[in-house]
């Protein structure tokens, strides 16, 4: 007998803030400003890769600001976790190469007690856009990720200065031989155009002079070496400043530029808030000003996450899940673990191969993640992940998860899954879906797997 599930309630989200001042004030739930499962799941998707029911429950309990406190400063022993994973990854880089490294990184994203840090590490990975094919050895890529992770929520000047001594960054952008007689403009241009200032905010002379500041930097045997006699010690004129600048100076100069502040604030907005919304300059101004004043990227991330804007309709479901967010979100929600070696290959087929950005601008992202081929492959990936057999095994078991949370009957387990995966955001006839799943299934475990597969195919589920 089929139990009809009641129609899902409409999502409840605060309206977009009226002014830039309102936008960045911390969100306080209250009249018209809900704190419910939908909004909590939104926070955990954006500030990480999604969450299971227990984590969602904790968030509901702690409230938005308390949850963000824990996201920024996890109570768990992150140092011990990092030590263990650093060891795994070090071994993987030695023996398994780039593919093994990718696999371990996905695993780290799934298990980390500090998901926000990993999420922002991927942000900087996209911004740095170093082509892993040029790195030569996996150790170089491992060091690249460690550096990005270490500074992902820190001082962008330090991050930038470190990147300018990072073998993966230099090799990835053809800057491994900073000869005084031939300053490398490719790396310098990338730094100005894609990492900091953005197009149109510098001149060809700035690129040339920045390249001069970087001379003396070499990659030898996969390690950075500064060769003083190759460094051009003359006076450089960069963005109106004059002096005998080095790479470190260059990092500092770039981070003082309002254009860099605005460009990074815009990128962060797109990363955390919305794919296609073009935020007006006045809206970004407080972020950009704080960037130039404090040089604290973690603070910027915190401001965005805590804000009225972040919890409003202007942000809610206004991003398309990257393949990474799509797959990891499903795995985290279902409290399981799968082969991340397989997963890394499937993500590459969906267009997101870590360490292999399609261009120096990183991945295009947004709606470019979804076309007629990638969407078909997303659906087929969910089918594989939730088949209960085959290359992903049977460790994702939606019925077991529902039972763990007290839902024994198929219809209540189905309701549980709708709340877990969609929080009522999709206009769907769960009863009909369950009936179809029962026909495909046979036993409750198979039925709920089929039901979860159907939920993962819902258009709303593709939105972050």
């Amino acid at each position, binding site marked *: 007998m089929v139990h009809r599930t009641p129609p899902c309630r409409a999502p409840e989200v605060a309206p977009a803030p009226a002014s830039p001042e309102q936008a960045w004030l911390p969100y306080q739930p209250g009249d018209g400003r809900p704190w419910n499962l939908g909004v909590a799941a939104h926070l955990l998707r954006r500030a990480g890769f999604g969450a299971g029911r227990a984590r969602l429950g904790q968030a509901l309990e702690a409230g938005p600001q308390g949850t963000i406190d824990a996201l920024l400063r996890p109570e768990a022993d992150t140092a011990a976790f990092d030590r263990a994973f650093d060891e795994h990854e070090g071994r993987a880089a030695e023996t398994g190469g780039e593919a093994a490294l990718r696999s371990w990184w996905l695993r780290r994203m799934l298990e980390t007690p500090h998901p926000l840090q990993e999420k922002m590490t991927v942000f900087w990975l996209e911004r740095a856009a170093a082509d892993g094919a040029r790195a030569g050895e996996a150790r170089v890529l491992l060091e690249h990720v460690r550096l990005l992770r270490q500074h992902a929520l820190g001082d962008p000047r330090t991050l930038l200065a470190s990147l300018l001594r990072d073998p993966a960054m230099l090799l990835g952008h053809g800057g491994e031989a900073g000869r005084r007689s031939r300053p490398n403009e490719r790396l310098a241009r990338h730094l100005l155009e894609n990492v900091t200032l953005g197009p149109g905010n510098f001149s060809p002379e700035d690129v040339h002079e920045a390249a001069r500041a970087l001379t003396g930097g070499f990659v030898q045997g996969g390690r950075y070496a500064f060769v003083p006699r190759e460094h051009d010690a003359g006076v450089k004129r960069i963005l109106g400043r004059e002096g005998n600048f080095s790479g470190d100076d260059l990092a500092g100069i770039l981070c003082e530029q309002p254009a860099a502040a605005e460009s990074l604030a815009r990128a962060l907005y797109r990363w955390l808030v919305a794919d296609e919304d073009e935020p007006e300059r006045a809206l970004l101004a407080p972020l950009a000003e704080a960037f130039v004043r404090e040089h604290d990227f973690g603070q910027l991330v915190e401001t965005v996450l805590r804000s009225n804007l972040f919890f409003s309709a202007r942000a809610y479901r206004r991003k398309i899940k990257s393949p990474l967010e799509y797959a990891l979100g499903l795995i985290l929600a279902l409290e399981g673990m799968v082969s991340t070696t397989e997963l890394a290959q499937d993500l590459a087929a969906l267009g997101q191969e870590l360490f292999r950005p399609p261009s120096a601008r990183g991945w295009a992202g947004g709606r470019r993640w979804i076309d007629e081929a990638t*969407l078909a492959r997303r659906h087929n990936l969910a089918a594989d992940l939730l088949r209960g057999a085959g290359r992903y095994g049977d460790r994702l078991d939606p019925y077991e998860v529902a039972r763990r949370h007290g839902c024994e009957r198929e219809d209540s387990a189905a309701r549980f899954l709708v709340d877990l995966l969609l929080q009522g955001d999709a206009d769907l006839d769960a009863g009909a879906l369950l009936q179809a799943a029962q026909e495909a299934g046979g036993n409750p475990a198979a039925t709920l797997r089929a039901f979860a597969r159907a939920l993962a195919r819902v258009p709303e589920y593709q939105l972050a």
Partner: protein
Amino acid sequence: MPASRRAFLKASLGASALVSFTGGVPRLLARALAAAPRAPERDTVLVVVQLTGGNDGLNTLVPFTDDVYGRSRTTLRLPAAQLHRVSADLGFHPDMQEFRGLFDQGLLSVVQGVGYPGQDRDHGGAMRAWHTAECAPGGAQSGWLGRAADLAWNPDSPGVPAAFVGSIPRPFALSAEETVVPALRSLEELVLRETEEHGGAPSDNPLLQHVRGVDRRARANSLKLEPLARQEGAAAGYPDFSLAADLHQAARLIEADLGVRMVCCELGGGGIGGFDNHANQLGNHCALLRQLAESVAAFIRDLQRIGALPRVLLMTFSEFGRTVSENGRRGTGHGEAAPLFLAGGGLAGGLIGSHPSLVDLVDDAPKHHTDFRRVYATVLEPWLGFDSKAVLGSEFAPLPLLRR
């Protein structure tokens, strides 16, 4: 492609003040194209077959009356009587009878003496040049077909503008900056194993509208592809070669009308080996050329059967030709110029350009007289309707390959 759309492409590409060429092809350009209405399902298609390893052009289209050929190829010389002659001096390899048949019907053209300046005869470097259309080592992060795919992508109807069909990793030629170009072993990968209709109240969220639209079309595609993906190559007259199987899948992709404009396949295995015959070339080269000729001929017949031949053009390429002399191991070394083959219904047919001299050589290899980017420009602009300059970075004069 209707004239109006082509005119639009030209008009919008002409006004390229916003276009910046740093690091490849401009996003703004793609945005400008967004406004173009999607071309009808009956758009032209380009199929590119990569011959990996450096094909020996001299033993593919053989200059059998040239004494230098006879003298230089002491063990690899092909007997004139066994060749399939296409002119008084040239004949296809004995195993390429099918190419002669296509040639006689005007369905096959040969562009002779194709290469590029600065050929360094290194597999990696030469392949990269053909893939990126950038002949001096530069920073290109995308391939020429990938850039064309970015141009073809229409946000209102994001179909599958390009695909690789085969079992090696996707060739770099298909690397795009924004479009995810799929590498398919089989069309099954685009068939939805389970599916249902997704309704829902109208939404003002453009991203949700986008996903819903793509979802509807992916389901419709799947319905079209499902019966096609189940078809057997043998039933459609394809021989039992991997290239034939891949071309059979490519034909089904074209038949399904998903808006695909460019398909890439490969012969040779992608890595070491294939056409790279440094020793005992004869037997291996025979086998590869037979696979090429028979697979392409089966593909052309298949396209004829489904009525798609007038809108499909196939071209081959290989990273370089080979040396005129043998190397003492019944093989040949890395060379330069080689012939390139085109097959399809829209061709002018015949031999294009002269056979390169076997006397005026560069380091024992025939010199090129036709830059391969002129072939690219021809298949991109008059054939596919893209602005070739936007893809290739500069202007290349098209060749008289197409029937007017």
